[in-house]
């Protein structure tokens, strides 16, 4: 039923407010009682629901807990719950929410609905290593109507998460990041990507491999992740919903272990030590080589751009080109990474970046033919 019909059934003008709608509904109810005139009542009720679903409940509440709001005890409670989640004390947060007072607080906070608050808590519970079904069934049986999309997402996320945890070994801090992201943005794909991006930002060396492993499981996350990483790299926007972890030192940021370069340096140092026979120049050179080799053994510097290029390759490999893909990658970087990845190379040509280097597209223009 559309709004015009509904207004007609209730005999109202389009500018009727919630009170007028209710009054008209009540007046007509006496004429169309559910007992004596079920058809008439059904139509009346449909009209009423059509109008009220739009009218009084339409102001979208702000889901961000950082939004300005008078500080009350309830707000403080909500903050306390979030704080516990921030620190990874899931069990505490969980207990707080089970307690009605805290649930009320979250109710204020999350969209004004218990279902929403519970949904987020459910996600947190799942990420806190609770088996998905158990967590939801035990703690939140009565919070959802069964075809609430969120509940189905919860169940699905629960399964995905179990699957993920069993296949990829992830550090505990990652759980915290993702959990928190889920709470702020309950869309699993985005939340997961945000969690990954923050993990990456916090500790690149450990995040790299985890992320690349994850991408094979979660191809659809790649494009969002790409944007997220870019956003974090390019500028830390002031309205970013999450408090960022402390800026890591450059050395810690860009290291990834490789074997060949440091080995060559160490072997060279050893050879010089054996053959130089006390040469002064050689004696000063050896420690430099050794230190360089040692550092290299810990990790080879890897630039942001290079990581982004890998992400990009991953996106392309799964046929998920993100919207803003490649626009901030330099052509030389694109070429270098592209030499190991045909899809990336092809993509570089397609967006015209590699053309700027004066290279010819090796693949002839293809006509797409419908199968």
């Amino acid at each position, binding site marked *: 039923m559309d709004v015009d019909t509904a207004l007609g059934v209730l005999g109202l003008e389009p500018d009727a407010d919630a009170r007028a709608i209710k009054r008209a509904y*009540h007046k007509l*109810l*006496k004429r169309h*009682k*559910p*007992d*004596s005139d*079920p058809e008439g*009542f*059904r139509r009346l*009720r449909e009209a009423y629901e059509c109008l009220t679903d739009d009218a009084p409940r339409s102001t979208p509440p702000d889901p961000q807990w950082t939004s300005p709001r008078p500080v009350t005890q309830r707000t403080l409670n909500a903050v306390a719950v979030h704080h516990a989640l921030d620190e990874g004390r899931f069990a505490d947060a969980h207990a707080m929410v089970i307690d*009605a007072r805290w649930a*009320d607080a979250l109710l204020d906070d999350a969209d004004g*609905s*218990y279902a929403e608050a519970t949904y987020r808590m459910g996600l947190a519970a799942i990420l806190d290593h609770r088996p998905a*079904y158990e967590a*939801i*069934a035990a703690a939140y*049986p*009565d*919070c*959802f*109507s*069964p*075809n609430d999309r969120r*509940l*189905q*997402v919860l*169940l*699905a996320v629960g*399964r*995905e998460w179990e*699957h993920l945890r069993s296949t990829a070994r992830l550090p505990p801090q990652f759980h915290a990041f993702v959990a928190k992201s889920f709470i702020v943005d309950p869309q699993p794909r985005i939340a997961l990507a945000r969690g990954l991006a923050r993990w990456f930002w916090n500790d690149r060396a450990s995040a790299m491999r985890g992320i690349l492993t994850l991408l094979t499981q*979660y191809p*659809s996350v790649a494009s969002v992740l790409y944007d997220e990483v870019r956003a974090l790299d390019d500028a830390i926007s002031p309205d970013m919903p999450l408090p960022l972890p402390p800026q890591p030192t450059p050395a810690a940021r860009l290291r990834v272990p490789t074997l060949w370069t440091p080995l060559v340096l160490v072997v060279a140092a050893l050879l010089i030590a054996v053959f130089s026979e006390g040469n002064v120049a050689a004696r000063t050179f050896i420690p430099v080589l050794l230190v360089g080799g040692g550092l290299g053994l810990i990790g080879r510097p890897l630039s942001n751009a290079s990581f982004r290029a890998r992400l990009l390759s991953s996106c392309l490999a799964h046929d998920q080109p993100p919207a803003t893909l490649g626009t901030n990658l330099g052509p030389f970087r694109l070429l270098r990474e592209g030499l190991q990845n045909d899809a990336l190379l092809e993509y570089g040509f397609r967006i015209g970046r590699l053309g700027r280097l004066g290279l010819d597209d090796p693949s002839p223009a293809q006509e797409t033919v419908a199968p």
Partner: protein
Amino acid sequence: MTLRKDAGVRIGIDLGTTHSLAAVLMNGRTIIIPNRLGERLTPSAVSVDTLGRVLVGAPAKAREVTHPKDTVCNFKRDMGTERSWNVGGKTMRPESLSALVLSDLRQSVEEHLGQPVLEAVVTVPAYFGEDQRRATQAACEIAGLHVERIINEPTAAALAYGFGNPEREAKLVVLDLGGGTFDVSVLEVTDGIIEIIASAGDARLGGEDFVEVMMERCRQRFLASDAIDLGAHADLSAKLRVACERAKRSLSSAERASVVVTGVGPSAKTLTLEVGRDEVHGWWAPLLQRMQTPVRQALKDAGWLRGAVDQVLLVGGATRMPIVSDFVASVFNKPGVRELPPDEAIAMGAAVQAALKADDAQVEDLVVTDIAPFSLGVNHTTEYGSHQVGGLFAAILERGTVLPASRSHSFSTLHDGQRMVEFSVYQGEHALCEHNTKIGQYTVQGIPPSPAGQQVLDVRFSYDLNGLLEIETTVRSTGETHVLVLDRSGRGMSKAEIERARTAMAGLKFHPREALPNVAALERAEAMFATVTGEPRAVLGEVLGSFRACLETQDPEVIRQHREQLLALLQTIRQH
């Protein structure tokens, strides 16, 4: 409009766990119809005496102490289950037992008003599922009552309230703690319009549970102090039950009460246990904890905060317990109101509903809208990422939907070339079908083969106030429609079973109704005799003996005098 003599009456029946009663709306007032004994409440109890004759109501309830094996009470709690009892050599299901109570009520009404019962509205706890409602419907059919409408108890209470306060505007919560069930309904009353907004409950929590907790604790105490296990024998445990019930009742007014069990063991020992109110309230704390859940859920469903509630209406005999009042006060920050007699409000509301259904002029300005207490839906499979998640419940008509209503949902095919879809219809709130109650199934065939996800089926659920569920499934591409109608009478006990139960009931021997006051007095005196000690017992024994003797004379006037003397004595003993 007054009722026409030839038309008969439409009554409301509260079929309770411990008590049942009937009411009728006449001349703008709800009247509770007294039973044959002149009492407003008829205990929901059935007993069979040594001659194989069936007793219903007060005399049967009294026999719970003296003949626990031949007496059944609290059978409402097993409605909708396969359980059956062997009573005096007869196997009876809860439907048949309820039918006995219903037909007893009907006879009382017909005797009292001198008119046949045309139609009845019977109440059930809001949280009764479809199985239990079906069983109730079957009971009505066995009793030969014409019942189209089964309404929720808190809705009935709200109706009684709205009928008595037509002008009022209020946001109400009705807490209905009966003998065996607990219901919470959240509703708005505006100018004679009663809108049920949400309801929740616990179908297995009531006054009887309070007694049972008490029995268990007392049993342990007696076991520790006197080394006697009162749970070992049915008759001892029946005595303990009566003693606990009595103590529970006196704790409503007194700070301390004693649980006295007489005639224990071969030496007929008397066991006494003194309990304090605070101590007993401590025992009951877990039950109060359980009461919180439905309250919270109903408010949640309604989207109300506790402070928004104007009035909390208490219904059901068990709300007389002070602990329940304290509970209400602590949850809502305001005292609960017993505006209507708690035992009778539901029957009164049912009578109002019966009039509403007949479009009676007495209730012209009253409207009630009720909601679906459970979600109804079908099973489905969803794809998420690389996984297929099956066995999920898709609620099509969600709980809280105002009835009658019609809702639809679309589903698409899962496999390439899929030609048929099997739907199972469930009722419940769990996201997984396996935890919900299956109420039917059907198969839609003739879907044109196409790639997965291309064919769309629209499933429409229409649910009316009489519990009739119509499911219409349309294949969108062909426009072909499949219709399934599930009604209450067609499920649960089959027609043949109901017919068999009716025949069985017709074959039962009943105590002659004229003799009922005598039988009731006799059984009550016997029950009292079994539970008292000392001098009262001796006096009662004497009076009981002379009553028995005078029953032989068959002189109605003499018998009446003796009976009244006996009942007066029982009253005196009870008060001391």
